[in-house]
């Protein structure tokens, strides 16, 4: 027994040592050393959801960053180095990652984290420490209001949903609506809150409000109830994964009314999953892959050759975000946290692949989303 | 009268394990409970300690009715038992086992156990001293720090007795204490039980080792198929034709046990 004890102890100490030794390691993404005169060198920390159930989002986002980084560094002027940390979608890990990044004095700004829940924890900390932080996918309410160092370039639900709702209501002469949303997810819950507010503003009748939970695959009970109440329109605050299945089951049941979805509902995957059943979905988004803007088409082409798949909204937002950072650095003229914050706050009408971009006084997005609808299995601009 | 068992019946799903058994045990005696396997001896122990209730009947302990009282309260009143298939706290040391036995004779709660006021330290010291003394009594003084599952079989049996005595019982129930012991060990056991008796403890013993029972007990009850077959002094029992028949008829069982 003693022998075993001794061996285990040695093993434990060895494990601990390995861990401690590995603690300092960074996964550093640097490309191009170009240290010519006039180039601003800057390190930017990225916190992203790279492992776990939402890893697909984090992957698209970091791909967007990397693509933009390559282009920006090739152009000269600004040379950006990305330091990427995983948050696994958890607040504690996001906070740890942010501390790790913030304590590196060379890092001038943070991008991410992916989820609004994470931003709620990381944002105040970044603000306290005076480092600009920009969310590229955080759409919940109140994020930029956390503090003056907190920005975002993702369109909040409060901006996107009303636009889509207005257009759909006008077109179909909607009087009665049904709501369905995922009540255990911060993203869909906050989308629902916006919908409810807007429904009240527009004076529509709510026939029923239904909820669903993560991991559920049967929505028939909720949909049967909705069907029985005959709404003119269904407002669905769901992520595309669940949303597509909801539409599929609804169409199978014989529900033909249009759906309006939130930001999370906007993905080519909806068509992929639901097929023809996806027809009649309305979403408002800054991102439209069929846009005839050469910049957009070039981005899609490059992204596809680099990563072998079509970029989604998250990749596009991340791509634009790094350009915004680069612009801020250029205007600031130096890689300094406070100077960068002030420069970011000043950004107006910057043309990106999502359109013309400005920050408002809080550091929130000012831009006009386009309303898309799915028709014949394709996203189209809805006029 | 230490214990009075009045008309106890126990049915298990229609099968009768004990039928109308009455026993009276006087203070200070060693009382034997014998009978072939399945006669209901251990069932009787379980009923006395209220591990399960009797179907009908009553038990009084010093004229106090104890049927329906929770097992740990029965120990509190002064009845403690050992088990046929040794049930020590196997990963505790010998000393700790006996100290657990003193549980119901000590009081320290969470806070005094943690903050250790003087009263707790004195109590803990007393428990420890008592445990050491009892280990000496059962001849295990060299094994304080041995984890009890590493003790030899006979030692485990003796440790169980020490643990039971630590609860200061007025009545001690021993369930086949000599099982698996060799002759020397059995002789030691005899001395031990006599010493326990000398401490003023009444003993009720289930045992298959007939020479030991006959030598040890003041009075004996024989159970057979859940019924009382005979009662009396060892001589009376040895000469009772019904008992002899019952035992001859089930000799093999006896051998196995």
């Amino acid at each position, binding site marked *: 027994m003693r022998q075993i004890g001794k061996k285990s102890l040695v093993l434990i100490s060895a494990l601990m040592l390995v861990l401690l030794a590995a603690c300092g390691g960074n996964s550093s993404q640097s490309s191009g050393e170009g240290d010519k005169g006039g180039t601003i060198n800057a390190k930017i920390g990225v916190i992203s959801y790279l492992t*776990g*159930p*939402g*890893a*697909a989002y984090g992957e698209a986002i970091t791909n967007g960053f990397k693509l933009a980084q390559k282009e920006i560094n090739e152009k000269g002027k600004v040379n950006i180095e990305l330091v990427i940390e995983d948050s696994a979608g958890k607040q504690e890990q996001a906070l740890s990652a942010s501390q790790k990044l913030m304590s590196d004095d060379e890092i001038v700004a943070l991008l991410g984290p992916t989820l609004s829940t994470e931003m709620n924890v990381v944002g105040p900390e970044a603000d306290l420490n005076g480092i600009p932080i920009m969310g590229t996918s955080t759409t919940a309410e109140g994020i930029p209001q956390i503090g003056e160092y907190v920005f975002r370039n993702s369109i909040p639900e409060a901006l996107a949903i009303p636009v889509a709702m207005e257009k759909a209501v006008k077109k179909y002469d909607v009087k009665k609506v049904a709501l369905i949303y995922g*009540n255990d997810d911060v993203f869909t819950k906050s989308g629902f809150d916006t919908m409810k507010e807007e429904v009240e503003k527009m004076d529509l009748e709510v026939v029923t409000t*239904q*909820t*669903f*939970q*993560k*991991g*559920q*695959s*049967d*929505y*028939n*009970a*909720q949909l*049967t*109830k909705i*069907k*029985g109440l005959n709404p003119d329109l269904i407002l669905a605050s769901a992520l595309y*994964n*669940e949303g*597509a*299945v909801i539409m*599929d*089951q609804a169409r*199978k*049941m*014989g529900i033909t009314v249009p759906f309006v979805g939130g930001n999370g509902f906007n993905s080519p*995957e909806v068509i*992929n*999953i*639901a*097929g023809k059943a996806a027809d009649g979905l309305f979403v408002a988004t800054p991102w439209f892959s069929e846009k005839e803007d050469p910049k957009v088409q070039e981005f899609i082409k490059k992204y596809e050759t680099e990563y072998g798949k079509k970029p989604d909204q998250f990749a596009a937002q991340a791509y634009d975000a790094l350009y915004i950072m680069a612009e801020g650095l250029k205007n600031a003229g130096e890689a300094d946290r406070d100077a960068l914050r002030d420069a970011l706050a000043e950004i107006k009408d910057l043309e990106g692949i999502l359109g013309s971009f400005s920050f408002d006084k809080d550091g929130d997005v000012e831009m006009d989303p386009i309303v898309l609808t799915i028709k014949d299995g394709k996203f189209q601009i809805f006029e | 009268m230490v214990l009075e068992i009045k008309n106890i019946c126990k049915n298990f799903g229609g099968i009768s394990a004990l039928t109308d058994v009455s026993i009276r045990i006087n203070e200070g005696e060693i009382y034997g409970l014998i009978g072939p396997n399945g006669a209901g001896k251990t069932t009787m122990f379980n009923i006395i300690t209220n591990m399960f209730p009797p179907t009908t009947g009553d038990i009084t302990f010093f004229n106090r009715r104890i049927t329906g009282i929770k097992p740990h309260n029965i120990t509190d009143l002064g009845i403690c038992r050992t088990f046929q298939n040794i049930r020590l706290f196997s990963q505790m040391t010998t000393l700790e086992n006996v100290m657990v036995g003193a549980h119901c004779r000590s009081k320290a709660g969470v806070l005094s156990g943690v903050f250790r006021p003087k009263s707790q330290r004195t109590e803990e010291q007393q428990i420890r001293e008592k445990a050491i003394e009892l280990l000496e009594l059962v001849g295990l003084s060299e094994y304080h720090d041995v984890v009890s599952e590493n003790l030899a079989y006979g030692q485990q049996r003796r440790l169980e007795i020490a643990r039971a005595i630590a609860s200061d019982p007025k009545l001690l129930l021993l369930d086949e204490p000599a099982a698996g012991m060799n002759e020397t060990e059995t002789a030691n056991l005899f001395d031990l039980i006599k010493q326990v008796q000398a401490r003023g403890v009444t003993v009720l013993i289930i045992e298959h080792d007939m020479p030991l029972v006959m030598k040890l007990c003041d009075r004996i009850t024989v159970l057979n198929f859940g019924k009382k077959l005979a009662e009396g002094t060892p001589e009376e029992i040895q000469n009772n034709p019904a008992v002899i028949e019952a035992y001859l008829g089930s000799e093999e069982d006896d051998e196995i046990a």
Partner: protein
Amino acid sequence: MLLEQLINGITLGSIYAIIALGFTLVFGVLGIINMAHGEIFMFGAFMGIIVTSTLKWPLWAAFLVAIAVTAILGYMLERFALRPLRGKQGVSHLAPLISTIGVSILLENISHHLFGAGNHPFRNSFAEINFQIGSITVYLVQIIIFVISIILMMALSYWLLRTKAGKALRATAENLETASILGVNTKKIIILTVIIASAMGGIAGILVGMAFNSVNPQMGLSMGLKGLAIIILGGMGNVKGAMAGGLILGLSETFVVAYGDSGYRDAIAFIIIIIILLVRPQGIFGQKSAAEGR
């Protein structure tokens, strides 16, 4: 509307029942709650998708592949997570529970890596066949699910009662040691049990994929916990109890949504667990002895 909800409830309940049958079989024979059963079910569903959507094979092949793969998973579960614990000194009865929780986490994350986190559509022309009865649309798949669940229940009951293998299974269930003394090859029986239970999970996986057109790695956990609730409701190790429990849970979930608050739908299963365990630990159909002594 009531009729439609009834159909929804029965469909959902039948699926729950098939999953619970797998749980109950393993518990009945081994006395182990297999927390990984939900994940094995999820793997079955993914196999269905790969076979029909990616490989474009016919549906019957999907069933065969799913049964084969889940059976292999079941074997591996037994071999690596259960067998090492059996007959070992000092292993607490909680060990298999913890070890199968380990398997469930492992499988869930493997499927994240293999299939991605998103939902996968299960597109099959067979799933589209439907009848119109008045304003109600009934899908053939819904009927099939109900029928299969009944057939599985009856087959399992019959098999346990009548056949030789079933008798051996029951002998094993009653007492592992006695069974092996009586000459039952307990090792083989245990492997067989876990494999059959897992294959049933695989079948359930494909049926769910067809009925709801949605398969994702997280579905295993949610279905698994529901299955757990059902076997507690119906009585551990009780085949008919699993069926009845499944239908009860499916119907009550559906009716909570229809006439109550859909937000509490997921809580029902757990409230059932708590109430049943406190009021009637042996389950509605269970015998008392099953719940005692463990």
